């Protein structure tokens, strides 16, 4: 019976533990394989299953290593979510400005909504600025935290605070997008389908898409935090 490939079995196990982050899993597999084969090549015995076993032993427990990688993965995901939140808000801002510019350019002056319109404009404005302030705060907060070598209760708390900030920022953004939707409907109310409504409708679709994308990325982040907790026990 053929002897199982020790290194292949080891890197498989390590990669499986990191399956929640496919890019990381692939990268770790490549790096670990390269390292282990280098180690085997340097072994005085010149190779063979015993040299492979020694290389794997020196490399360390795959579960412990996976736990350390998981923390870095979580930090990377957190930073990506922070960036996505800021870019999402910026995209909503651009879509909003494009729509308003279109109204001015086409002298589109259909329904303004009166008193209701004024209230919704205020909600829109304050919600949008709140989302910017909270998102930037969250991004700066997570960007200035030190990434620990292992998952600590302190780091887990910091990640939770960051998720809460992202949710608050996205919540405010959603309020702003809903307000934009109301304002757009008030303005376009009664208009029969024409090319003039294309830009407002497309810009609204972009806003809704951005808000939805942010909710998805925050959900992904929360899932990653849970997966990290499973791989990396608290220290």
């Amino acid at each position, binding site marked *: 019976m053929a002897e199982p490939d020790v290194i292949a079995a080891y890197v498989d196990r390590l990669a499986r533990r990191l399956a929640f982050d496919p890019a990381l899993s692939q990268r770790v597999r490549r790096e670990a394989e390269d390292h282990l084969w280098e180690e085997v090549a340097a072994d005085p015995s010149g190779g063979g299953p015993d040299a492979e076993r020694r290389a794997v032993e020196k490399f360390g427990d795959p579960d412990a290593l996976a736990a350390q990688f998981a923390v*870095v993965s979580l930090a990377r995901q957190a930073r990506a979510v922070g960036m996505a939140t800021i870019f999402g808000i910026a995209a909503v801002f651009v879509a909003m400005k494009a729509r308003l510019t279109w109204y001015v350019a086409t002298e589109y002056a259909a329904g303004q909504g009166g008193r209701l319109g004024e209230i919704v404009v205020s909600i829109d404005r304050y919600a949008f600025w709140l989302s910017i302030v909270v998102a930037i705060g969250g991004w700066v907060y997570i960007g200035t935290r030190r990434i620990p070598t292992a998952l600590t209760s302190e780091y887990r708390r910091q990640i939770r605070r960051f998720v809460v900030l992202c949710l608050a920022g996205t919540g405010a953004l959603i309020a702003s997008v809903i307000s934009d939707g109301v304002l757009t409907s008030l303005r376009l109310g009664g208009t029969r389908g024409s090319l003039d409504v294309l830009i407002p409708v497309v810009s609204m679709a972009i806003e809704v898409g951005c808000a939805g994308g942010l909710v998805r990325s925050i959900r992904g982040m929360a899932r990653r935090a849970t997966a990290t907790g499973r791989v990396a026990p608290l220290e």
Partner: protein
Amino acid sequence: MLKGHLDMIVLAALAAGPAHGYAVIEEIKRRSSGAFELPEGTIYPVLHRLEHAGLLAGRWTTADSGRRRRVYELTKRGKRELGERRAVWEQFSEAIAGLFKGSRSWQSPT
């Protein structure tokens, strides 16, 4: 104790020039005369973390064996960080050495 200084050890090993994980471990062993015993795989999460923090830059290359290999090097920020950590460490080490010197002369009369 070693765990708390791994970042500095890895940064110091990479001060000599770009290297892949295995070469970093070898450099640490060589320069420390084998004083640091740690599971070799431990170096990789450190390399990933330092890269994420912008202290290292990594790029994929192909080794002579044909395997894909990630090579790391210090960024400008990494060099600055290493300089700062070295200064703090030297200060700390001098202070401890001073303390030990004092304790030796205090014990010697007995």
